[in-house]
C-alpha cells in the first residue's frame, strides 16, 4: 500500500508532468483563462490517463516488450530459444490505443452520463493529441513499473499533478487581469514567466526522498 502512495505523491509533486517535464503545455497554455474550464480539462486528463496507461501497460508487457510474447504457444514458433522484440512498434501502438480509447470514452460518456459529457465533452477530442497522455504511456514504458496497480497509481498521480498545475495557473491568470503587465509581455509572455516561477517553487519538492 505504501508503495502506491509513494508513487502517487512522487508523480504529483516531484515528477509533475507540467513543471518537471513540460508535457501537455499546448493545452495548458491555451485553456487556462478561467478556472472552471481549466478544471474541466484537468479532470478529463486524469480520467483519460487512468484508462489509457493501464491498457498500454498490458500491451507493453504482453505484446511489445522483449520476450513478452512468451505466453504464446510453442506452436507459433516462439519457444524458449527465440524471443520477439516488438518494442520499436510501441509509438504507433500507444498512439493508436490513446486515439481510439479517447474516441470510445467520448461515445460511452455521451450515451451513459450526459451530465459528465456536458462538462468534459468538448475537451475529450483535444486530449487525443495532448502530450501528457502519450507521455504518460512512454514514461510508464521507460520506468518499467512492476505491476498494473503501480502503473495505474502513476497515471492517477500524474493526472492529479496536471490538474493542480492548470487550475493554479488559471487562478493566477484570472487575477493578473487587474495588474499592469508591460504590453509586449501581455498574454503569452507573462504566462510563461508565471509558469517558470511555479516550476521553481515545485523544485522545492526535489529534496524529498521516497
Amino acid at each position, binding site marked *: 500500500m505504501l508503495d502506491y502512495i509513494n508513487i502517487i505523491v512522487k508523480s504529483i509533486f516531484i515528477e509533475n508532468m507540467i513543471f518537471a517535464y513540460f508535457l*501537455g503545455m499546448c493545452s495548458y497554455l491555451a485553456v487556462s483563462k478561467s478556472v472552471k474550464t481549466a478544471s474541466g480539462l484537468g479532470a478529463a486528463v486524469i480520467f483519460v490517463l487512468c484508462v489509457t496507461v493501464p491498457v498500454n501497460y498490458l500491451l507493453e508487457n504482453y505484446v511489445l516488450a522483449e520476450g513478452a510474447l512468451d505466453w504464446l504457444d510453442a506452436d507459433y514458433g516462439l519457444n524458449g530459444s527465440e524471443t520477439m522484440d516488438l518494442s520499436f512498434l510501441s*509509438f504507433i501502438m500507444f498512439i493508436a490505443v490513446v486515439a481510439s480509447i479517447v474516441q470510445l470514452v467520448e461515445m460511452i460518456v455521451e450515451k451513459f452520463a450526459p451530465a459528465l459529457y456536458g462538462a468534459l465533452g468538448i475537451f475529450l477530442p483535444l486530449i487525443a493529441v495532448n502530450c501528457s497522455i502519450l507521455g504518460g504511456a512512454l514514461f510508464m514504458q521507460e520506468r518499467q513499473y512492476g505491476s498494473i496497480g503501480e502503473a495505474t497509481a502513476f497515471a492517477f498521480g500524474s493526472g492529479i499533478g496536471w490538474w493542480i498545475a492548470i487550475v493554479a495557473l488559471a487562478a493566477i491568470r484570472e487575477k493578473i487581469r487587474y495588474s499592469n503587465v508591460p504590453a509586449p*509581455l501581455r498574454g503569452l509572455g507573462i504566462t510563461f514567466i508565471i509558469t517558470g516561477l511555479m516550476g521553481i517553487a515545485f523544485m522545492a519538492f526535489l529534496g524529498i526522498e521516497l
Partner: protein
Amino acid sequence: MSAKKESLFSKKNMKLIKDPLNDSNPISIQVLGICSALAITIMLENAFVMSMSVLFVLIMANVIVSVIRNMIPDKIRIIVQLVIVATLVITVDQILKAFVYEVSKQLSVFVGLIITNCIIMGRLEAFALGNKVGPSFLDAIGNAFGYTWILLVVGLIREVFGSGSLTMFGLEGLIPESWMIENGGFYEHNGLMLLSPIALFLVAGVIWVQRAKNRKLIEEN
C-alpha cells in the same frame, strides 16, 4: 519546368517560409510545440538533434498528407495523420538509436512525443490538408526553422552559461579556469540555467523582444 520552378519560389510562396521565422513563429506566436522546446534545451547538441528530427518529420508528414489529401475521408483524418506521423517518428527514433545513442538516451521520451508535437498536427490540419504539395513543403520548412532557431538560441544560452561548454563543437571550459571563484576569480557557473523552468524565462524573453519590435502582435491581456 523552369516556369513551374518560378511559381514555386514566387513572392507568395516565399512568404510561407519567412512568416513562421518571425511574425507567425510556431513557438512564440502560435504557441505550438512548447513541450519539447523547453525540456530538451539543456545542451545545444540535444536541441540541434531534436530540431533536425522535427524538421524531417514535419517536412515528410506535410508532403505525404498533402499528396493524399483528397483521398483521406474527413471523419478519420486525425487517425490517418497520427499513423503517418508515428511511422515517421519510429524511423527517426531508430536512426537516432543507431547513430547517436547517447543523445537519444538523453532525449528519452521526447523523441516519441514528436508524434503529439502540436506543430506537426497543427500544420497538417491547418495547411497540408488544404494546399498543394509545393506550398506545403515550403510551409513545413518555414515552420521547422521557426522552431529550430528558438531551440538553438535557448540551448546555446543554457549550455554556455549553465555549464560553460559547447559539447556539440567539442568545446569544453569556455570560461578560463582563472576566472573561477575557487581559483580566486569572480565567475561561477549559473546552476539555475540547468534547471528546467529557466527555459520558460528565456522563451518569455524571446517573446518580449519580438513583440516589442512588432507591436501588432501584442495581445489583449
